[in-house]
């Protein structure tokens, strides 16, 4: 009986040996690989997601405001549209260090402070009282490959917070201009009309307002829109007030540059 099935028994033993042996071998190889992966160290090059900025040759055609040109790098209107589109449609952002042609953190923070003063939101004496946080990032869409973008796609996100104000400003890293802002005011500030505020925002962004009238829509929150000259862009201001308890209230205002939808 045993001799009749001896090959079958040997075969089963061999098969079992092979099955469990192959498991052990794979486990062993994976352990070696795991050790390699989990003891890795060294220095890696951090590839910047943006290229260094080489400003376009003295081609002034398409430049929006000549008087602003002296203050920093100037972009063509197409480049501005491209940068706005990329930033507004971002799903996440990749932080990176400034590359050549981009403003530094100090410059961005100072430009933001200046913007707040010029917009009449803060005063120069407040600057030291702010808690500041700044980071430089480039917007990326989901599934986008790691291809390097132009330097003007990067934005400084600078946060200022104090007793009376909380502001998040988005400054283009090449121009150093504020192209978006989220302001929360806890104290009353000298009021301007929404139209005036928006025109000032556009001017400070280094752009020119179209001759068309601004559109004001008031439906619980005030939304004002104004077209940008010779471009697909328009600026938008949205603001609303909210009460916290009986005595406290705050006003939230956002400024954005947007692309017209065809």
């Amino acid at each position, binding site marked *: 009986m045993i001799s009749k099935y001896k090959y079958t028994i040997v075969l089963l033993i061999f098969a079992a040996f*092979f099955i469990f042996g192959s498991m052990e071998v794979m486990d062993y190889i994976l352990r070696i690989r*795991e050790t390699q992966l989990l003891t890795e160290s060294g220095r*890696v090059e951090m*590839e910047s997601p943006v290229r260094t900025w080489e400003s376009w040759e003295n081609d002034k055609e398409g430049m929006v405001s000549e008087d602003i040109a002296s203050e920093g790098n100037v972009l063509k209107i197409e480049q501005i549209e491209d940068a706005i589109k990329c930033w507004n449609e971002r799903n996440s952002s990749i932080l990176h260090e400034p590359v050549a042609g981009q403003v530094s953190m100090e410059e961005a923070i100072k430009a933001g402070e200046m913007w707040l003063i010029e917009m009449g939101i803060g005063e120069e004496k407040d600057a030291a009282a*702010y808690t500041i946080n700044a980071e430089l990032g480039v917007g990326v869409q989901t599934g986008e490959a790691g291809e390097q973008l132009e330097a003007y796609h990067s934005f400084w996100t600078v946060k200022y917070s104090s007793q009376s104000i909380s502001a998040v400003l988005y400054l283009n890293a090449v121009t150093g201009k504020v192209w978006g802002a989220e302001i929360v005011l806890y104290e009353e500030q000298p009021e301007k009309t929404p139209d005036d505020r928006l025109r000032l925002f556009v001017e400070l962004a280094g752009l020119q307002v179209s001759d068309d009238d601004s559109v004001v829509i008031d439906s619980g929150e005030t939304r004002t829109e104004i077209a940008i000259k010779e471009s697909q862009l328009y600026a938008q201001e949205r603001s609303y007030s909210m009460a916290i308890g009986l005595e406290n209230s705050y006003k939230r205002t956002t400024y954005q540059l947007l692309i017209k939808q065809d």
Partner: protein
Amino acid sequence: MRLFHKIFLCFVVIFSITFQVAGYLLINHTYGNAISQEKKLAIQNFQYNRYILQSILYSDPEFFFKEETEVENISNSFSVPVAVYGIDGKYFFSNLATQPGELDFVEVDDNRISFRIYEKDGRNYIFVCDYIRQGENAMYLITQTDISSVIDTQKNMIDYFQKIYIVILCISFPMIFLLTNLITTPIKKVRKATRRIAGGRYTERISIKGKDEISELAYDFNQMAGQIEEKIAELSDAARQKEDFAANFAHELKTPMTSVIGYADMLYQRNLPREEVKSAAGYILKEGMRLESLSLKLMDLFVLDKQEFILEKMSVREMFENLEQGIEPVCRKHGAILHMEIEDGIIRVDYDLFKTMVLNLADNALKADCRDVWVEGKQDGNIYQIRIKDNGKGIPPEELERITEAFYMVDKSRSRKQHGAGIGMALVSKIVEVHGAKMEIESDGKTGTQIYLNFVAGGEENDK
């Protein structure tokens, strides 16, 4: 080791290797990707916290020279545990869970960054360290990103994979067994059939299903078995013919020898009158001549098998004109009439053999007590047909197949009376074969016999 074992083992080996290699590649790829993603995340964490630190230093360049308790308050500002050291290695701040061991502290403001993956107490971390400069301040920042959950997930995946491997193996083991059995069953059938044939059951065949290689093998096997069966039948037949031949030959020798011995003994023992001596000597002479005739015919029969004959183109009509002179008197002697109607034609023959063949056939017809013998010849396309017909007793249809066997006689007693030995038709059959012709015999056993001899007309080579 049986084929079943080999196939089974092959299946198991291939299955195991494929599964494990595929699993290894998959897990290794996933593992590598996961670690790579975690490294990117750790670097992003570092980048984020570097900006936080720089912002703090921008706002307050003397921040790390404040009271320790005040410095400790910044731990909430960072998104991950961090450590801050001065260029000289002076400790400023740390909320790291563990120390990363040795890290590359490089005082170079370039775009390269140091990292280290480190395991402690079963937890895995990625430490990232770089030189940071903000205004007058320069220091090192170390961030710690916990990747234990990712590593645990990967380890769980390996365990899960091995469990799946065992489960699939448990499911597939019986399937492999059945599949192997399915493959080897037809081979077992062929083996059994082979053994039965080897045991003498030549009619054994394998039932064929499908069109795969094993079905083809079974088909070929059946063909081979058919051929063997046919050959065995032929050999049995030949052996029987030889036995019959030997028995008949002995019998044909014994009959005349008995007479010869009897008469010779009588002459030796007694003093007989002259007339009786003459009569006895006559019997001895007649039986001796019969034996001589038998031996000559047998010699012809054997010679026909061995010798090569040169066939010549000859006119059929001319041959039969000569043969008629020999056949016609014999017919007359037996009271039969010869009817000859021959179309002219050319065939390749050895004349002496041809003559022997026709005379034997005519002799057989006369021995069948016929009244008429018809000899006809005509050409039909490339065939020249000679028909020899008689109206004698005929041959029973069941005997037709055997009449070309040597010593076979339809009516033995009558044949012996007519001094026949059953060699004639065997001789005719051999001569027909030598000429490459075909012979057909028709008879109903009552109204005579017709024999057709088909030659290639025009003297062409017979084998064409």
